[in-house]
């Protein structure tokens, strides 16, 4: 197969490859898609159904069009403080992403490129923080939150969330920097008279952007789904975040308004999807690593 193809004109060769391996790829991806998306589809359907018929038996995966209704969405948007919860969660998410991006990139750069006393110990300590989930430390953390007056305050969640996600972001970024950003780039800046800050600004941030984007997408998601800590800190209705708000529908005695739950969840997913769409282009952007090696 190899030899003849090398003599074929390029356009024909490509066309041959596209038709077979490409179609297999699309096929596999689409098949996987069904499995992945089906539960989401079910959630969407349920949010469009009347509250009472969500869990009937026999279960209905498809609903006739005339039974579909937007009343759940209407209820969520018109009653209660949905917009307030929404903006609260957005604020927390943005600040968490920002703080953790800044801190983790600073830390990752320092650990990736420099030597200083206690470096290995410090790095291991930061990484080992990842090992205990934030929720396990709820009692001591709450004591801290009280001391810093962070209870019933959005910063009480922002700061802790940032602290919880920073170790992982640092971990990933450090590895990315070591793997993919050659020291020669740093050297070039130094030779032009720049300092470490310049390297940070002009080399690290742009070149690590795919990794920063990847962790930011995950960090952005976190406030939209974290429940334990947000429930402990955020008590006043005005500063609640979406996950806490959704629990209001888990009324006592097993009566849950599933339609509302799914509708609110659906709406909560929209900003995360948008954020993802905005950042995911960084995965496509060409990187300069190839040009240096060549």
């Amino acid at each position, binding site marked *: 197969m190899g030899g003849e193809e090398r003599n074929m004109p390029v356009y024909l060769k490509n066309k041959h490859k596209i038709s077979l391996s490409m179609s297999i790829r699309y096929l596999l991806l689409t098949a996987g898609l069904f499995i992945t998306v089906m539960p989401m589809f079910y959630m969407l359907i349920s949010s469009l159904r009347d509250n009472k018929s969500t869990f009937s038996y026999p279960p209905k995966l498809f609903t006739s069009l005339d039974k579909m209704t937007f009343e759940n969405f209407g209820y969520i948007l018109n009653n209660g403080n949905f917009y307030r919860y929404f903006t609260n969660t957005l604020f927390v998410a943005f600040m968490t992403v920002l703080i953790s991006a800044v801190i983790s990139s600073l830390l990752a750069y320092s650990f990736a490129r420099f030597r200083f006393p206690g470096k290995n110990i410090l790095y291991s300590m930061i990484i080992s923080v990842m090992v205990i989930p934030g929720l396990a430390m709820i009692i001591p953390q709450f004591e801290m939150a009280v001391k810093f007056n962070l*209870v019933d305050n959005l910063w009480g969640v922002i700061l802790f969330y940032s602290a919880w996600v920073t170790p992982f972001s640092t971990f990933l970024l450090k590895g990315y920097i070591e793997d993919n950003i050659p020291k020669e780039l740093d050297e070039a800046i130094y030779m032009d008279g720049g300092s470490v800050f310049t390297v940070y600004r002009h080399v690290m941030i742009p070149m690590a952007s795919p990794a920063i984007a990847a962790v930011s997408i995950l960090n952005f998601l976190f406030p939209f789904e974290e429940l334990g800590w947000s429930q402990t800190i955020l*008590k006043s209705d005005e500063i609640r975040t979406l996950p806490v708000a959704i629990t209001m529908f888990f009324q006592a005695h097993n009566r849950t308004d599933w339609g509302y739950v799914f509708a609110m969840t659906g709406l909560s997913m929209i900003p995360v999807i948008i954020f993802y769409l905005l950042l995911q282009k960084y995965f496509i952007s060409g990187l300069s690593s190839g040009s240096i090696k060549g």
Partner: protein
Amino acid sequence: MKKYKIIGVMALLLMLASLVITSCSSDNKEVSSDESVVIEFWHNYDAGAGQVEVLEKLIKEFEAENKDIQVKPVYLEWEALKNNVVSGAATGSLPDVLRGDIAFVPQFQSLNVLEEMSALSDYKDAASGILEAPNSTAKIDNIFYGIAANTNTKILFYNKTKLQGANIKVPKTLDELWEAALNVSDSKTIGMVEPWTGIWNVGPYIWSEGGDVLSPDNSTAEGYINGTVAVKVIQKLADLYEVKALAGPSMDPGAVGDTDGWASGTYALQLDGPWRENLNIDAGVDYGAIPLPAGSNGSISVLGGEDFMMFKSSSDAQKKASWEFIKFMTGKHAQVEMAKVGQMPVNKEALSDPEAIKAIPLLPVFSEALKSAKSRPVTARWSEMENIIATKVAEAITGVKEVKKALDEAAVEIDKLISESK
């Protein structure tokens, strides 16, 4: 890329600034001005049933009558209500008033956070207008740590359509209830559902047959939770479970939840509280309800409900204001208003109020059951004990362990707890 650096610096400055600001701001508990005291009220009134609306209306009325008090209500879901008290206990980050499940009283007391309400000068007066049995749920060792807010108990709900369809008469005794559960079960129906396996669920059966969980002075479990009556009752439940005449999500996580099961016609019988009425109406089930059919020792159901509690961490002014609020909420007017949205009153006058009776059609049945309902032991480590019982009973019912063995183990563990807390 300069902007990243600027953003970064700004963000750090912002963060530091806000930390400074929040540290300098006032205490997280509301600071009372000279004119008015602010009290924080944690609750889990059901918004869907309209209870939150009524609460807000009542608060406005209260504030109008008491111009120097402001009430700040905070809704917390049932579990979060308990968890937040647990996490806030050490630092005293607690509300001033809380309305929570009666089961919370011993739990919170073990955290040393509850105010001794019986020490209040007019507690006796206020309590005299309240039903005695529900109020006893707030009493530990002759000290009252709360006052009843609303009460409920469990009665037998049955699906009329299903029973009639299988030609089963409404059971009049406990044995007939087991028979009915057996006979109504078929491939698509499971006779009875019990969402949990604690004393809240199996207690009524044990008590109605003459047994008990702990000795009358709550000092021993041996001989009671593993006594003959208890073993017989749990064995019966295990037998029903084996032939799929009994199911529940805590015994089998794959089982349909009770509310969903009623709606889909999976379950036909359940010993449950007043919320089951509205839920069945919503689900369009043709149901009936009677007090628990009597066993050899009568018909003894389990007492449920919520109590109002006050906290040691509040200031004197807040405690005074909280007590005023609680007296208002346990007064006739508030109790009748709450009755209209499904909260069974504990106030004696409210119980005979025509509006309340109109609002809760099953009130006569519940009142009947309330006369003989028994409260679960109100003792220091009860929640741990009930957890042990729930685990062992679940093991017994699902057949993991023999009934006697499981209950013996429960007795041993509970007695160990009792001796530790001495």
